[in-house]
């Protein structure tokens, strides 16, 4: 019936991406273009005392220098779609290092950059505010970042702990980590007849439209946002950031098209990062390993002005059956720029703590870590008792364990020369996020099909799977389907984040295709072919009916603008999985390398096994980076990220990724999450990996590492005793 859905179609955008033919925001050129370079504050906190643009204006090619005085006053906009509540260049207060204070506009990027370096600014600096768990605050629910209650309690945790035969209580910590997408964010803004057009790097074109419409006091329809291709996002391009707002204003003030492209350093302070997270997990279990209580408290850093919060306990809310659950999320202000959701937010940091603690509990019980998980399998959502929309986690555990050889693994760590080999596992879980979506399909009399949806291409495979779904529904080869996307002139969809695009936009595409088919059937009924004629191609039917083309609009809706974990309906929606790793540790040299991994997932229907596998390998690699190297360290004296470049911040390279990473999906269709039976997969691959690695290090060396990343310093001498 549905040959498109489930087939391992190769990426249609592969060729244009590897040959460089794909055009990104900063590739767009227009006549009369001005290049913008930002002057940013070098202090973490304080005031801008004086700013002299004259030396910049003396640079040949520099056309203008804009300061706060040249800016319109922006209206207040909710966060999100705006990334931050306080917009740049509205006053003289410095709230984080890297905050923009002036824009230099010039005929060439080089002149703009040279001009920006010459703007003479004086500051009065106050001491930076550093992260401290002691200053934890309850977030305000005015920010949409606070999409859940910060506290959740069920049952009697003190009683559960008191009754426990075994207890584990431990603190875990991770440093800030940046998204580091390959493409630096960039925007080209141009005004024509009171209408604003932006070419921009975005995961959510409609969000940029709403954010700017609010801030600039414009009707949304007067803003068109285009994002042909976005060079990786991971959350860094989800909302509306200064490059979009400032490019729009600079173009308005100068009456010329303006391109504002961040430098790599500016990516570190004007697109967010996963915050520093300090966590404490307390578990109680009876003698058989059944949990009697779970307590999970976290504090994450936020900025001076925004309430971003990492719900690190999100995984604990849905993972294990327990009679008592006590969860809390707090934030602590720092004079850093605002953190932001980053691939596997919430569960990503949180499951490092929970799944490390579960391993500690398994050790305390003398129980196989997998058996401990199985013993605590949650048959309904532990946070509210609702039934699951679908869940095949038992199968994911079992099939993953078989693929890995978990049951046959050596109980004592094995040796390979100087390397000690350890194995570890962790559960994975991710909240299902859903957004409404719409799409349009047009069949033309020449047989070509045009599929239109505002959704974005951030490199995950959307350019392949949406045409694939349409082709499958219409029963035509995918070659005949052209996708138009990344444009607010097209039917509205949500952002390409929260692992939501495939399931939600895909559902709208499917709906559009089915409606188109129904209309074709209607036409066929009115224009019956002669009896016994061979089956007729749809375009032949159109021609016979004298139609040039035929369109249908499809929708995916559930009565709300947003849903997390299925709260809009009767079923709890999460995705699940298990990750198994073998890690090699050389304690004399402090080295740790990934030898092999198996990821086994219960995530609903897989629309395209090839792109899905790529996502999961990417997720495991992402998790390896979190485990083994990533840290955006903050200099305590300067109150800034020490390295704002990829030379001072390590992320995994190809040589870190073993060939032996096996990905398995349990055969599953979720009947409640949407008509495709699919849920999201983009982020869950990154969940649990850091815990599995830390657990494998414990297995290899007996050393429990609770601070990420696991660096040579922490491994040196491990296992010696």
């Amino acid at each position, binding site marked *: 019936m549905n040959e498109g859905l489930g087939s391992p179609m190769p990426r249609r955008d592969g060729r244009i991406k590897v040959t460089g033919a794909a055009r990104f925001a900063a590739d767009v050129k227009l006549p009369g273009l001005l290049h913008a370079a930002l002057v940013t504050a070098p202090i973490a906190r304080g005031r801008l005392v004086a700013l002299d643009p004259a030396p910049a204006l003396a640079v040949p090619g520099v056309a203008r220098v804009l300061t706060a005085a040249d800016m319109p006053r922006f209206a207040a906009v909710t966060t999100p779609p705006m990334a931050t509540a306080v917009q740049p260049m509205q006053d003289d207060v410095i709230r984080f290092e890297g905050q923009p204070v002036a824009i230099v506009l010039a005929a060439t990027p080089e002149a703009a950059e040279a001009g920006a370096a010459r703007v003479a600014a004086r500051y009065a600096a106050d001491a930076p505010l550093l992260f401290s768990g002691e200053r934890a605050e309850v977030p305000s629910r005015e920010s949409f970042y606070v999409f859940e209650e910060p506290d959740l309690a069920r049952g009697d945790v003190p009683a559960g702990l008191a009754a426990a035969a075994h207890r584990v209580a431990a603190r875990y910590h991770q440093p800030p980590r940046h998204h580091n997408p390959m493409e630096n964010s960039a925007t080209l803004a141009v005004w024509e007849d009171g209408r604003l057009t932006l070419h921009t790097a975005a995961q959510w074109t409609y969000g940029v439209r709403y954010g700017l419409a609010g801030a600039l006091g414009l009707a949304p329809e007067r803003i068109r946002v285009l994002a042909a291709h976005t060079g990786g996002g991971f959350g860094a391009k989800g909302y509306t950031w200064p490059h979009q707002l400032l490019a729009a204003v600079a173009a308005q003030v100068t009456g010329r098209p303006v391109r504002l492209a961040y*430098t790599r350093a500016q990516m570190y302070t004007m697109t967010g990062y996963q915050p520093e997270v300090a966590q404490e997990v307390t578990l109680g279990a009876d003698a058989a390993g059944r949990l009697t209580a779970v307590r999970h408290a976290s504090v994450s850093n936020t900025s001076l002005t925004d309430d971003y919060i990492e719900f690190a306990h999100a995984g604990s809310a849905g993972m294990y059956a327990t009679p008592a659950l006590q969860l809390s999320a707090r934030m602590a202000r720092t004079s850093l720029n605002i953190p932001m959701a980053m691939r596997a937010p919430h569960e990503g940091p949180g499951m490092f703590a929970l799944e490390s603690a579960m391993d500690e509990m398994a050790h305390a019980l003398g129980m196989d870590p997998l058996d401990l998980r199985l013993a605590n399998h949650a048959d309904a959502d532990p946070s509210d008792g609702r039934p699951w929309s679908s869940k095949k986690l038992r199968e994911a555990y079992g099939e993953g364990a078989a693929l890995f050889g978990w049951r046959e693994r050596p109980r004592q760590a094995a040796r390979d020369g100087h390397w000690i080999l350890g194995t570890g596992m962790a559960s994975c879980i991710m909240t299902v996020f859903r957004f409404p979506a719409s799409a349009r399909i047009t069949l033309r009399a020449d047989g070509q099909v045009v599929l239109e949806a505002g959704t974005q291409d951030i490199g995950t495979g959307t350019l392949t799977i949406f045409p694939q779904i349409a082709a499958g529904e219409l029963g035509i080869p995918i070659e005949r389907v052209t996708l138009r996307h990344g444009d607010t002139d097209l039917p509205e969809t949500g952002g390409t984040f929260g692992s939501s695009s495939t399931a939600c936009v895909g559902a709208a595409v499917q709906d559009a295709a089915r409606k188109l088919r129904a209309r074709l059937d209607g036409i066929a009924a009115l224009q019956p072919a002669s009896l016994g004629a061979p089956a007729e191609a749809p375009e032949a039917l159109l021609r016979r009916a004298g139609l040039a083309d035929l369109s249908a609009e499809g929708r995916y809706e559930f009565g709300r603008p947003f849903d997390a974990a299925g709260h809009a309906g009767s079923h709890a929606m999460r995705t699940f999985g298990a990750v198994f790793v073998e890690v090699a540790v050389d304690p004399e040299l402090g080295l740790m390398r990934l030898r092999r991994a198996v990821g086994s997932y219960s995530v609903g229907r897989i629309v395209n096994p090839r792109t899905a596998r790529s996502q999961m390998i990417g997720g495991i690699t992402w998790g390896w980076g979190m485990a083994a190297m990533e840290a955006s360290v903050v200099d305590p004296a300067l109150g800034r990220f020490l390295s704002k470049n990829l*030379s001072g911040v390590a992320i995994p390279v*190809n040589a870190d990724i073993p060939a032996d990473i096996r990905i398995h999906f349990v055969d599953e269709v979720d009947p409640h999450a949407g008509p495709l039976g699919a849920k999201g997969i983009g982020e869950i691959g990154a969940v649990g990996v850091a815990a599995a690695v830390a657990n494998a290090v414990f297995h290899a060396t007996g050393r429990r590492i609770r601070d990420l990343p696991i660096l040579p310093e922490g491994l040196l001498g491990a296992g010696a005793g």
Partner: protein
Amino acid sequence: MQPFTLARPASLEEATRLAAAGAMPLAGGTELLNWMRLGIAAPARLADISRLPGLDAIAPLPDGGLSLGALARLNDVAAHPAVRAGYPVLRQAIHKAASAQLRNLATIGGNLLQKTRCAYFRAEESLPCNRRAPGSGCAALHGLNERHAIFGWTEACVATQPSDPAVALAALDAVVVVAGPAGARRIPLGDLHLLPDAAGAAADTALRAGEIIVAIELPGPAPRSAYLKIRERESYEYALVSAAGALVLDGRTIRRARLALGSVAMKPWRLPAAEAALAGLSLDDTAALRAALEPAFAEARPLSHNGYKVPLARNAALRVIGMIAEGHAP
């Protein structure tokens, strides 16, 4: 980046003249352009020496050694049959440096002249750093100095020299041949890089104004040699600590040992006392080998956050001897 003019000298003489007049030599450009983009250097004039004829030659020397032209590309050096057979430590050090793409462009001469990777020094704007802005202080001294020096630092600067090939060349007792306005001279590799002094982090190297590296000369082959590089990721990353070793063996007995450590000081750090103590020891007597190395590390002066580098460097030195003993590449 500031505007600059580019000169293309046709001869070495012209190049040294230009350099003496303030032009900065441009070889592969993989370091220099970064400095210019970051504002670490703002030369008004560059002298592109990359096309000077003959300076990329790799040729045997009459004494059995090997001459590496300063402009030889890193990958060409590593691939050369004489290097492959006679100097595995250099080949391995090169293959562990940077990325394949960079090594196709980067020259061996330019590599030795790269500057520290200290993150304060390499920031996108000027932070308190004596090496970048003399007199501005050293943010790393009491700051984030996990990757900094354990030997030879002063309060003025605690940075390290990051070159991998330099560590191998130090262990090989290479000599740097330079040409300058005052003629040619030979600088032992161990004297090329300068430690900071108490007053500040003056110059990086002993090169004088206008001097250009012409070649690097290696003494006779060191087939029993190896390079170990320790870093949190497997490739394309500078060393936390590295170790280069070259041994002369008599069966399983060490006749002569040469050891140099990388990323522990502002120059490759030879271990003369340990080298002397290793002579006569058996490769199989790990305890004795360890004891021979130990005193060298008693002299280490770790900073607030890099104490781990002391045992790490010691273990690296011991391991590199083991690698040579086992006769395998890392």
